[in-house]
């Protein structure tokens, strides 16, 4: 069971508690994502498969096997009918979610494909690879529309903004770059005094800020137009793996991230204080995702653990709250 430690005397009113543990993958989890309608969870693993689960009861729905090597990342299309997976076998595959069949294989990368994402219109897929490039693919035909000479080290994360006009990419070379999605031109490079390898990047829900995770155990929120960072979140441990983070906006604004000390960390967005640490995994938590509408967090961990845990916030009725207060 999860304990909710309160640090700095700040707690979120209703702490997250473990609701369910999803087992089935045979090797470490690499990525966890919710579909846009919130009905499905998809998980990818080093065991070369991806799986979908139902959000409501955690039941296992479908397994997607076919990749020759482990899968590093996956993404749902906006209508949740297709799933894209990025694998060490240098390909990106598009799967039909309901049947589990590979619909398309996108080849072109010359090294492990590390990250993948759909654009909101879901007519394009962006992928980043160890071959230091970012590729934009046309979903319908499978053609590679653009190859961006993005970085000088493996690309660790790629993400579209909410209207699909910009792509952000991050890399071990310490840079985050913003690209115009329609022309492929580099718009901006974010660089600070020190540039530790960047392990993760994603746009904020309104597309104005980017959340950047670096391998010096720091998460930063940057305003990319001004090129300055606005918030720093620390306290977790991240120096080896590319751990994903997420924005939680369904009930208050929080940043959620995994950590190498086997916990899931929650920070309050504005005050930057840690409000909760979710314990329960037995290995580094490498992937987290937030449900689009409900107060639910999904987390996946590495080899020792191999499970995906679902955490939910119980909404307390006012009467219960006063009872609890009375007890204390």
């Amino acid at each position, binding site marked *: 069971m999860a304990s909710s430690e309160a640090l700095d005397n700040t707690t979120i009113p209703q702490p997250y508690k473990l609701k369910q543990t999803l087992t089935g993958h045979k090797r470490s989890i690499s990525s966890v994502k919710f579909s846009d309608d919130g009905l499905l969870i998809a998980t990818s693993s080093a065991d070369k498969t991806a799986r979908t689960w139902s959000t409501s009861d955690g039941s296992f729905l479908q397994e997607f096997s076919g990749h020759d090597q482990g899968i590093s990342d996956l993404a749902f299309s906006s209508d949740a009918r297709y799933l894209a997976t990025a694998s060490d076998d240098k390909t990106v595959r598009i799967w039909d979610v309901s049947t589990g069949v590979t619909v398309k294989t996108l*080849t072109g990368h010359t090294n492990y494909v590390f990250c993948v994402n759909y654009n909101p219109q879901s007519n394009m897929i962006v992928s980043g690879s160890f071959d230091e*490039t970012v590729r934009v693919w046309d979903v319908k035909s499978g053609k590679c529309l653009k190859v961006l000479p993005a970085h000088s080290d493996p690309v660790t994360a790629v993400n579209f903004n909410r209207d699909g006009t910009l792509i952000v990419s991050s890399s071990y070379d310490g840079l985050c770059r913003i690209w115009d999605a329609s022309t492929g031109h580099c718009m*901006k490079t974010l660089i600070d005094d020190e540039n530790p390898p960047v392990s993760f990047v994603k746009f904020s829900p309104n597309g104005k800020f980017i959340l950047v995770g670096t391998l010096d155990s720091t998460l930063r929120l940057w305003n990319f137009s001004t090129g300055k960072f606005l918030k720093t979140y620390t306290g977790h441990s991240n120096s080896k793996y590319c751990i994903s983070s997420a924005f939680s906006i369904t009930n208050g604004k929080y940043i959620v991230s995994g950590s190498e000390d086997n916990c899931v960390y929650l920070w309050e967005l504005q005050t930057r204080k840690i409000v909760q640490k979710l314990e329960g995994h037995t290995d580094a938590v490498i992937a987290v995702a937030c449900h689009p509408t409900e107060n639910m967090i999904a987390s996946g961990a590495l080899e020792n653990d191999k499970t995906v845990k679902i955490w939910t916030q119980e909404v307390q009725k006012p009467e219960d709250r006063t009872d609890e207060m009375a007890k204390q």
Partner: protein
Amino acid sequence: MNPIIDPLQGDFPEVIEEFLEHGIMKCISFNRRGTLLAAGCSDGSCVVWDFETRGIAKELRDKDCAAAITSVCWSRNGHNILISAADKSLTLWDVVKGEKIYRITLQQTPLQARLHPLESTLCLICPFSSAPITVDLRTETTTTLPISLSEKPAPTSKNKFSDGSAYTPTAACFNKYGDLVYVGNSVGEILIIDHKKNQVCGIVTISGGAVIKNIVFSRDGQFLLTNSSDRTIRIYENLLKQQDSHKLILDEILPNSENEVEMLKGAGTNCLSLFREFQDSITKVHWKAPCFSGDGEWVVGGSASKGEHKIYIWDRRAGNLVKILEGPKEALMDLVWHPVHPIVVSVSLTGLVYIWAKDYTENWSAFAPDFKELEENEEYVEREDEFDLMPETEKVKESETNEEDEVDITTVEKDSAFSDSEEELCFLPADPCPDPDVSGDKHTGRRDNSSPLSEDHNGYSNQVEGPENSGGEDTGGVTHLKRRRKPSEKVLEQQQAQKVQKSKASGKSLKPKSKFGNEQEEENDMNHFGDENGFDD
């Protein structure tokens, strides 16, 4: 729209970026946001291109109609397309479902069909040889609009059919909110008509009285453009307040005026005022398909001369010619400017659609923020202590960002370019075409294809210039253009001055061999797989 795009030197296209091929396309139209491009073909089908991926998103094919499409028009919310064809038919399609909603046969071939900006079933048709009509698609009623005032004798036109009977081509368009129709007749008069009452509310005469061939409003309804047979494009400023403009005009008309014509002319002067005239005084070329840019800052017109594909771009405010785009030696059929981007799309006689965009010059400062591009070598004088070793921290940290400030991550700014967003159709769902059943082994070891050059197959776009974005992998055979640096302001001013002097600056023309790729060694098999399955619908 995008907060970090640098303001460009001139927001107009310069070179052919790509061309689209699918049968023989005749006329094109963007949807309101410019995400989809509808193209009417000579075989009666209409192809909807996804403009972002440059692939076909949908094909609207009517088995009853095999005649060439004469015009294509999107509805405001993007759900419907109005198509007029050479077999006198008018069809309204539901784009997502790919089904016909209404289909009407008219008396004459409609040359141009435009949907009312707000009412989804009312449209304005310019038939081949008679006055413009408004058609209500639901009730199938047609109303003929006046093309001249009743007192005046019927305008004798200089254009006659081969059998000697006269035909009066007229151009017409709705204003921004559709309450008025502006008709340009064959004696050089612009009639402002309240189409509900079928009454002329104002007249503006163009000096010279030449036949008006096209009449078009800018997207914001502030400016009106006329193209006359005296080879001049005229820009008028719309003086009427945007909404309820028809009521305003009727107030202007005094009930007891003596001469109705004078009264209407007076009303007309309150509606439009001549702003600019554009012509090519050297070659005296006729214009074809003129229109405004999305923001109304530029006016673009195609040369109507056969055998050349020239597009002229003028600055609306300053009134000067800024660019002439030259394409391959094929006559120009249709021309549109993208609603948002500095992109122009033109259709040539051969049925190809050319996409003109800005020439890509790499912005090196985007790659490293402390990069500053120099135009010429600069003498750098170092500081006294430039090379001294400083024991303490050399970099003075800027004032610590105040991390206490509130950050708003959820509020979305409205897009200023578009007024509202009702249930608008911006994209058609893209289903991946399934690969044929091939074992995965074939894909490994396949030579990388970084350029989407593909061989002859329907519906795929062809990249003209080599992909300037290809990264480390060099496919060879593809011409890689050296990344050009963005010229500094000084150089651009000089170039501008030179251009204006010569009044001719040709954009890059199509390399003859690049239509079907250069010596491409190996194709990515994926493209072929895509072909064999064709497209949905």
